[in-house]
């Protein structure tokens, strides 16, 4: 199995599967009333998905023929940590408020990327979100989620 893993098999497999799921979903919901002469609402989506499926299969076959390739110089741990950090930030974004969660996310991002100098780290983590908040909320009146119990 390991001999088949490369970027093409993963790409082809992933998008082939997504195309199949979306195609199935489109046929389940395509039973709708249409005005006479109108094209079905899922027509373009289905055409595009069939094309995605065909291209994914072509890329998958190409990948299988190429055989397994060892991943290059990729640091998996920081990558997954960064993904977890941003997913967690999104989950807590509305609950915790922008000015609480985003400085933590910025600091976490810098730490994951290997930056350790405390003063610039804290300075940036606070300054950029606060400046963005002031610009958007105070100057432009575009609301961002506030910290519970506080008005900012």
């Amino acid at each position, binding site marked *: 199995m390991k001999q088949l893993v490369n970027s093409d098999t993963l790409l082809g497999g992933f998008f082939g599967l997504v195309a199949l799921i979306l195609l199935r979903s489109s046929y389940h919901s395509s039973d709708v009333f249409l005005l006479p002469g*109108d094209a079905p609402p899922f027509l373009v989506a289905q055409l595009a998905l069939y094309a995605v499926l065909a291209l994914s299969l072509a890329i998958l076959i*190409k990948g299988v023929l190429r055989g397994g390739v060892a991943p290059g110089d990729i640091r998996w741990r920081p990558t997954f940590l960064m993904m977890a950090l*941003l997913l967690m930030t999104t989950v807590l974004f509305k609950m915790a408020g922008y000015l609480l969660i985003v*400085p933590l996310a910025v600091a976490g991002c810098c730490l994951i990327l290997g930056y350790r100098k405390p003063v610039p780290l804290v300075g940036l983590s606070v300054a950029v*979100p606060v400046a963005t908040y002031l610009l958007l909320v105070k100057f432009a009146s*575009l*609301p961002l989620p506030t910290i519970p119990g506080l008005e900012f």
Partner: protein
Amino acid sequence: MDFTSLVAAIGMQADPTTLAIMVLATFLGMIVGALPGLGTVTALAIVLPFTFVLSPTQAIGMLTAIYVSSVYGGSVPAILINVPGTPQSAATALDGYPMAQSGRAAEALGWVTVASAIGGIFSMIVLMFLAPQLAQVAVQFGSIETFALIVFSLTTIAWVSAGNPLKGLLAGLIGIVMSTVGIDALSGVERFTFGNFELSAGLHVVPILIGLFALSEVFASAAQPVSGVTGKVVSAGFKVAPLQEWKPVRKTLLRSSVIGTFLGILPGVGATAASLIGYAQARSSSDSAQSFGKGNPEGIVASEAANNAVTGGALVPTLALGIPGDAATAVMLGALVVHGITPGVNLFQGSPDLVNFVFVALLVANVMMLIVGALAAQMFSRVLKLPHALIMGGVVALSLAGSYVTRFSMVDLWVTVIAGILGLFLRFANVPLAPIVIGFILGQPFEESLRKGLIITDMQPLRFFNSPIAVLFFAITAAVVAWPLLAKARAARH
């Protein structure tokens, strides 16, 4: 040329707030362009949500200034540290870096700045005269012709811009599928919303852009660390060569400006190819070809005039037809639509003031690039020393805020993060990201024109071939697809 609306556009441009915003945007664009890893599209994507609070003219001015100056900004690290800030500045490094090493960094930046401004202004003049003519031709386009034009553009962009055409096409199709999410405007049917009310309004281009280009860069930095500048960076300065030194390169300047403008108009070719072709042409026709790559200013002029001339060229189909030529103009198109401006023939007929404002803004942006570039040159060596991790931290804060304020929707924030992860995966698989955005932006007009065309032809798509214009576009599309395949087959046979 409607001079009354041109005067009105100049009046709009003279607004002090607009000018101040453009100065700031020029400065910002240069810095983002100069930072390796970021680039024109990332800069535009991050800034786009912040333009929601501006008037349409201020927003156009800001985005135009960032577009022009970030292309220029990429040449600064190419000269000072031999690392192009953007791919389109790769050819500039060939002669710019040797010049900097021999103690002529200020002179090299002078050549870059002036050549970039001249290339940009040349393309603006072409845009000013060509775009209205193209819009006049587009008056004759009905649904079927529009459909054929979009098929041609999408196929060409996907086929030409990618190293692997299959992956380029896949990317374009992913964009089209994403554009179909939400309630169908014609039938009212919900598509791919999976019962989520917030998805009924469809996906928005801004979170997709921010995720694909900005957040995926953050993830990529974690996966493959970007080594910061460790050695000493030359303190640059700015020095324009005397007029007599410009005389021998004036032909190169003109040739590269023409090449850049022409390639900018063609879908999918872009500034990187333009600068490389401009450089190669200059080298092959120069009397001092042997000094290219060793610090010949003509090489810098050739590359920079070409890559900045692309900016105006790429806006020709964007403004006249609503078809973006590359990812940067796709963002510009998205920004115009967000501000209630729909490019195309109706824009030229209904809002000539606004069209002329774009021309004037492009001219002003190029002049500002010249002035701000000269004034800020001394500061670039410090900017290049900024730690990459801190820059990425800033990108995270701006990306999250920008995505949320697009529609104050958590779905948009989720789309951003998921698009970021998808963007990283696609980068690893060598799938170009630009066709996704272009596919997404053109997805709606593609669907509308196809469905209207089918209604007109009584659901018989073969009758699309009754239109000569559509046949022409389909034939060119087939040629674009077949040509590299035939060339490959011929090469394999020999």
